[in-house]
């Protein structure tokens, strides 16, 4: 299993509450700003999108690429982060 970043560990450790979108693993400043412009200003909104896409990896990756231009690694980090969070808390 690939090692997870510090950001990932922190995110999945607790309920996300009102954390901003750039608290998600893989989402930095630039991507975070782009997502906020589209209306995804909180992590839970992205979670909502993740759930509406039925937690499907390919769909979520495609959506992330289209909405903020995330590359493959960023897509994977974000997906993994959300999935693990869901496994623990959903």
């Amino acid at each position, binding site marked *: 299993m690939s090692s997870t970043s510090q950001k990932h560990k922190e995110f999945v450790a607790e309920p996300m509450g009102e954390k901003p979108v750039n608290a998600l693993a893989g989402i930095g400043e630039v991507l975070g700003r782009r997502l906020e412009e589209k209306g995804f200003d909180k992590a839970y909104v992205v979670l909502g*999108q993740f759930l*509406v*896409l*039925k937690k*499907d990896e*390919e*769909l979520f990756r*495609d*959506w992330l690429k*289209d909405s903020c231009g995330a590359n493959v690694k960023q897509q994977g980090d974000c997906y993994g982060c959300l999935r693990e969070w869901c496994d623990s808390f959903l």
Partner: protein
Amino acid sequence: MAALRNKSDQEIKDLLDEYGIKHGPVVDTTRPLYEKKLKETMAKAKVTVTKPSPDRTFYREDQEEVTYVTYQTPVRSEGPSGDGKPYMRSRPEYSERDRVDDKPYSRPEYSERDRVDDKPYSRSRPEYSERDRLDDKLYSRSRPEYSSGRPYIDEPHVYNTPSSSSYSKPTPVVKSGGGVVKKENTTSSGRLIPLWVQFLVFLILAGFLYFIFTNMESAESSPFNRIQ
């Protein structure tokens, strides 16, 4: 299907199911993604469908052109009776091509054509290639009619005997055109040496090697025997 935007959510969902695309509910945030996926899938489906047909017609044209060109020489050699009269007869395709000379000509009306043909006939030789292209479809349609042995009223004597004997079968002409191509013109097939020559050379070489092999001395006897 350019109106993906105008379709209702339900219709988008139905399309997704139709193409077997895995999806969730179609909501505001997911709709653009699904529209994009549908567009890609539909474009891919369209490509596979439309591909074969253009190729088919193209091939037919190609073949006709090819056979046309290559046929000239053999026809020429055997036609003592006229300049190019045997041309017409021998190649059903040719005659159809001739017909193109007279634009107002209707395809199936061969008889009229013959008469008018004399002049354009002689000069039309080099122009065939162009005409071929014009005529492919018309050509193929009228070819079956040709096989019935349509008589050329003007010069039946010229055509029938020499040409009919050799080119009595109009339909195989097309197929044999492929063989003729190899002999006459290499432009279409792209072979410098004809195939049959290659096979022959190969067989000769193989036979030669086999002959040598069988005539070799057996290795059972020791080569180190003393000469006594």
